[in-house]
């Protein structure tokens, strides 16, 4: 699981670019992660320039 601070997001798609299973969808002003296909690799959290994404620690 990845936590998303949606209102912080700039929808730049850096996360989409590095996501191995292609489970992130970014549109004009929305970001969604499909938790069924997410593999918890956390690559998206490493690349996000403004700390929108973080691993869910639970």
């Amino acid at each position: 699981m990845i936590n998303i601070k949606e209102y912080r997001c700039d929808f730049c798609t850096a996360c989409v670019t590095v996501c191995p299973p292609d489970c992130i969808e970014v549109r004009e002003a929305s970001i969604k992660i499909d938790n069924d296909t997410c593999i918890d690799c956390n690559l998206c959290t490493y690349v996000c320039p403004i700390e929108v994404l973080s691993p869910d620690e639970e």
Partner: protein
Amino acid sequence: MKNNYDIVVVGGGPGGSMAALHSAKGGANVCLLEKTRDIGYPVRCGEAMGEWAIKQFFEPKQSWIAADIKRSRIVAPNGIPIDIPFNKEQAYVLNRRVFDYDLSLMASKEGADVFTKCYVKSIDRNDENGYDVHLDYLGEHKSIKTKLIIGADGIESRIGRWAGIKTQINMRDMESCIQYSVGNIEVDSNRIDMYVGDNWAPGGYLWVFPKGDGAANIGLGIGSKYNRKKSAKKYLDEFIENKYPEATIHTTMCGGVPCSKPMAHPICDNVMLVGDAAHFINPITGGGIAAAMKSGMFAGQVGSEAIIANDYSQNFLKKYISLCQKDFTKRHEKIYKVKETITKLTDDEMNQMALKINELPPHKITLGKVFTTAIMKKPSLIIDVMKMFAGF
């Protein structure tokens, strides 16, 4: 919107508009699909471009240009500036909002249909040797039949991924970037500044590109392995606080830049990728406007020829690859090698270089000289570096 187009171009940046323009020019029935409501906005770019690079395509309009750049300054990690005047070459900081918009107007003038708020959801091979493009246009589902898709959909490059082209980027080559458009600062409006070193921007650089009237684009890119520990935003906020505490922030934009080698095979049957989607980016400067426009132009030309020949096979489309190679991909591959050398320089080495360079008489300081000092151990790279910077 028709149900059938010879060519569908996905993405309305400079690469997409050039692809649509040249597809239409070649006689193809083409549409350009942009997912946001505005072509040219949001801007995700430092907006600098070499004069010669733009003049390959068009005589620049005054409204495209925010600032004329006549010199550059590289600031070493310890704060020592190296000032480098441009000799013959000149550069611009563009207004991408106006520039991108105008390019799309040119495409439509040539006959391309342009649609905004048009989000491509998936693509499917159909039984007519082409693709069905499924999209959401203003909240309604639509499908378009097409023979050729030109993916100009930027770094995310989902078109390429769906078509089976390997588009994923090695994290090692990924730069995390953020930029503020600021006002209320004092800068030389004819000079671009670049800060290097681990303090400012580890594994990348920080830029101050003036936009006239006390405004500038201030941004940075850092290697993703550094971003993981401390975000690009934190680095930029610290810089602004230290150097330009009075600055007001008018736009925040961010993005990822793949500073990788260009994609070796950005095509497959019925699909071509252009610009960022094909990783056509100068791996050192991160600049991609010129390569996007060039590849868009080539893709449009080859695409319209494919329509006339009624052949959309990879074998026909490979002409696109050789056109790109001759023009810029080979150069980008060399630059990538240079990048690998430069990123190994430590802050101390860069500081020493700055001292040495500043001992030279001012008229002898050129960008080439800076990099000759940088890569003295590998003299064969000098020529590549000079060529690269001549091309911005």
